[in-house]
């Protein structure tokens, strides 16, 4: 007799997150939710595709840019400063904004992406790198952390179909 759904997937709730963005700011939502869900006994699968693959590189060089982001106003000297696109285009501005944000992250006791990713690995979050994107952007699995597996859309679908929550970020 075929196994019931409960027998097959266990009692744990499941969640998948599709991670498509590779900037410092957008690296946070998927890793915060993945680690927190894992801490709440949810079985988590993260599927990294397109720019999201940046988040799996052994050495993270994530940047944040004010370009095209009118909502990005950084606290500065008691005020909030946003940046017109024309200024955001100047070489070095993104690097400067990245340094500013990293300083804020430290000052406010926010975890680094490296720490959150480590926490995800330690809590058995499953991380799948998209094979097609690896080919497309000529990325090498050797440059990524060891704990990943390689898969495609069907690998995510199988996981998504038995999940309670599926998020796209």
């Amino acid at each position, binding site marked *: 007799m075929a196994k019931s759904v409960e027998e097959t997937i266990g009692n744990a709730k499941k969640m998948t997150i599709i991670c498509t963005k590779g900037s410092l700011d957008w690296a946070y939502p998927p890793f915060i939710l993945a680690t927190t869900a894992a*801490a*709440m006994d949810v079985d988590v699968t993260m599927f990294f595709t397109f720019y999201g693959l940046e988040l799996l590189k052994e050495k993270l060089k994530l940047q944040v840019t004010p370009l095209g982001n009118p909502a990005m106003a950084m606290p500065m000297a008691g005020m909030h400063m946003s940046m017109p696109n024309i200024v955001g285009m100047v070489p070095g501005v993104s690097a400067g904004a990245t340094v500013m944000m990293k300083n804020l992250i430290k000052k406010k006791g926010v*975890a680094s992406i490296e720490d959150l990713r480590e926490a995800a690995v330690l809590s058995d979050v499953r991380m799948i790198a998209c094979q097609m994107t690896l080919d497309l952007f000529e990325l090498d699995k050797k440059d990524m952390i060891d704990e990943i597996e390689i898969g495609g859309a069907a690998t995510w679908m199988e996981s998504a179909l038995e999940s309670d929550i599926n998020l796209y970020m």
Partner: protein
Amino acid sequence: MADETLDAKGLNCPLPILKAKKALKGMDDGKVLEVISTDPGSIADFQAFCRTTGNELMEHATNDGVYTFLIKRVV
């Protein structure tokens, strides 16, 4: 009262929860973990965490921007 104490002061979301989970994992059933936090979001978060995981939030208190939680490990 508590068997172990976790000082999560100065840490922001989701670190107090992640560290509390790690601490609870290393404890026996029925033992009590005290968490001290300064993250105002942790009030709602520890209640949700305990409701979801089945661990018992025995007590929580606020004192001058410092939040204290007593969590009994149930599962």
